[in-house]
């Protein structure tokens, strides 16, 4: 004797349990998903190598000619930085050619009242005041705000400060210097730029912590899928109430 799903459904109807249909929407296209994971990887490499550039590991023993530790650390930092920057440029391009959700990272409906109301609802949901979150195809307003502030604005800040510092070794007249060298006298001096770049690392690190936590939590507790969405591209809804 076996029970088929149809049997279960019939049983639920009989016992007056509402039928839950699971709907799904294709939200994140493949290039965007690839960008997300490339970005995640490059940020991880950047933060770890950045930490070691500011706080180098214990001294290497033996002759200097036998080692190139800081050289490698800096190489990986700069490589990851180029990947991050190139991916960012691609992401900007994708905002134009991708679907409507691809534009969220660069647009904030700042003047739309309902955005702030929904954002407040989301805050209350995290504060355990609201019983239930709302459903969103793309980012929820709170996530949307954070993405724009940290990934777009923060990312641009990190790229400008980063390339300005990089220009210090490529030298006067290099393209990095011509494009970004103006920042150093604007901020004060090289040390200031370094410190602000370093603060940026911490801001992004804390954001990543929050991002990973809320993604897992929303996946478990909200009414829609989160983590699998960034893998498959499909946003699945756990119920079909509005």
């Amino acid at each position, binding site marked *: 004797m076996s029970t088929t799903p149809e049997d279960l459904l019939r049983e639920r109807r009989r*016992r*007056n*349990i*509402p039928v839950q249909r699971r709907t799904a929407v294709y939200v994140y296209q493949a290039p965007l998903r690839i960008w997300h994971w490339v970005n995640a990887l490059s940020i991880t490499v950047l933060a770890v190598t950045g930490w070691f550039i*500011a*706080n*180098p*590991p*214990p*001294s*290497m023993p033996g002759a*200097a*000619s*036998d*080692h*190139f*530790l*800081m*050289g490698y*650390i800096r190489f990986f930092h700069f490589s990851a930085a180029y990947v991050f920057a190139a991916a960012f440029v691609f992401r900007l391009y994708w905002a134009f050619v991708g679907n409507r959700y691809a534009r969220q990272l660069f647009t904030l409906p700042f003047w739309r009242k309902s955005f702030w109301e929904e954002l407040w609802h989301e805050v209350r949901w*995290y504060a*355990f005041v609201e*019983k*239930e979150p709302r459903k969103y195809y793309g980012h929820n307003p709170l996530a949307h705000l954070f993405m724009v502030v940290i990934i777009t604005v923060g990312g641009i800040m990190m790229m400008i400060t980063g390339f300005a510092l990089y220009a*210090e*070794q490529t*030298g*006067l007249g290099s393209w990095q210097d011509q494009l970004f*060298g*103006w920042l*150093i*006298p604007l901020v*004060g*001096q*090289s*040390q*200031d730029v*370094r*410190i602000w770049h*370093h*603060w940026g*690392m*911490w801001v992004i*690190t*804390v954001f990543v*912590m*929050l991002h990973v*936590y809320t993604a897992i*939590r929303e996946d*478990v*507790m909200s009414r829609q899928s989160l983590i699998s969405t960034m893998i498959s591209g499909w946003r699945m809804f756990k119920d079909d*109430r509005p």
Partner: protein
Amino acid sequence: MPTATTETFYEVMRRQGITRRSFIKFCSLTATALGLAPSFAGKIAHAMETKPRTPVLWLHGLECTCCSESFIRSAHPLVSDVVLSMISLDYDDLIMASAGHQAEAILEEITHKYKGNYILAVEGNPPLEQEGMSCIIAGRPFVEQLQEVAKDCKAIISWGSCASWGCVQAARPNPTRATPVHEVIRDKPIIKVPGCPPIAEVMTGVLTYMLTFERIPELDRQGRPVMFYGQRIHDKCYRRPHFDAGQFVEDWDDEAARKGYCLYKMGCKGPTTYNACSTVRWNNGVSFPIQSGHGCIGCSEDGFWDKGSFYQHTTDTHVFGVEANADKVGLAAAGVVGAAIGAHAAYSAIALARHKVAGNADPTADRKSSHAGAGDQQ
């Protein structure tokens, strides 16, 4: 241009006892120091023999005279001798023989006679608070003397970090409002030669370039001559291989310090400081701070007194008077956020469990029919 009676550089030098041989040596040395081809030695010599010398007026504002001390100790005695006679400072109240009204009369005379054709070298800076009374020269605020002399000069050289950035007297809270020259004089080309003090050979090199070629050397965005300030100390540091290898001094008296490893972890500002110390060096090319075992303190950088400890790599950030270190705050923030996430996750799990318990107790737990659920529970 000056009248025909004006002496050339060469004539001045000869009059001061410089031999022809020494003069030619100086020309070759200067060409090398400026990074020019050997053929330029002849051009420099020719220029010096034919061009009437450009007078240099050297003013002193709020300063400690370390620039002058450095300048008169120019590493190669030859250079120092020749340059001192070459520029034949028409006015430098520190080292000139005349004093008082006689000295001030020279200033008056040169600014009129060589109108638009003299170079103004400024050591130190003018304080602007209290109507400039914190620095009095010849009975008047220095800022007035500076403005008067600057009015008809060809160009200004800002000697040292005082004139270039403000230096210690402009450090927070800067009670006298000591102000770098470029913020007081805005209509003249200004060459910044920062450092506390600048290297003697850098000073003489810049002057020689300007006097021989009659033009301003190539400057970077901040107005410093690229030939001496185009690279960081770190870029040419002889300890750089230890940095790349990852070999650092961790303590002032550890084995690494004795072996001469990189001073990065001791807060060396070589990576953020633009100057020629690691190539030109100091005191006759004998040494420079890093070679002597101490990190660079970044004395030629803008506002170096206010940029945190000389002994920290990740220096403190001043936020409305409260100092914060990016690493300390960052680690603390990560810890607090991590703990908050843990607590939030735990509470979320409890809330979820409660929700499920409520859901199991009442099959119609969906909020549409929650009134029934509430009834069941009671």
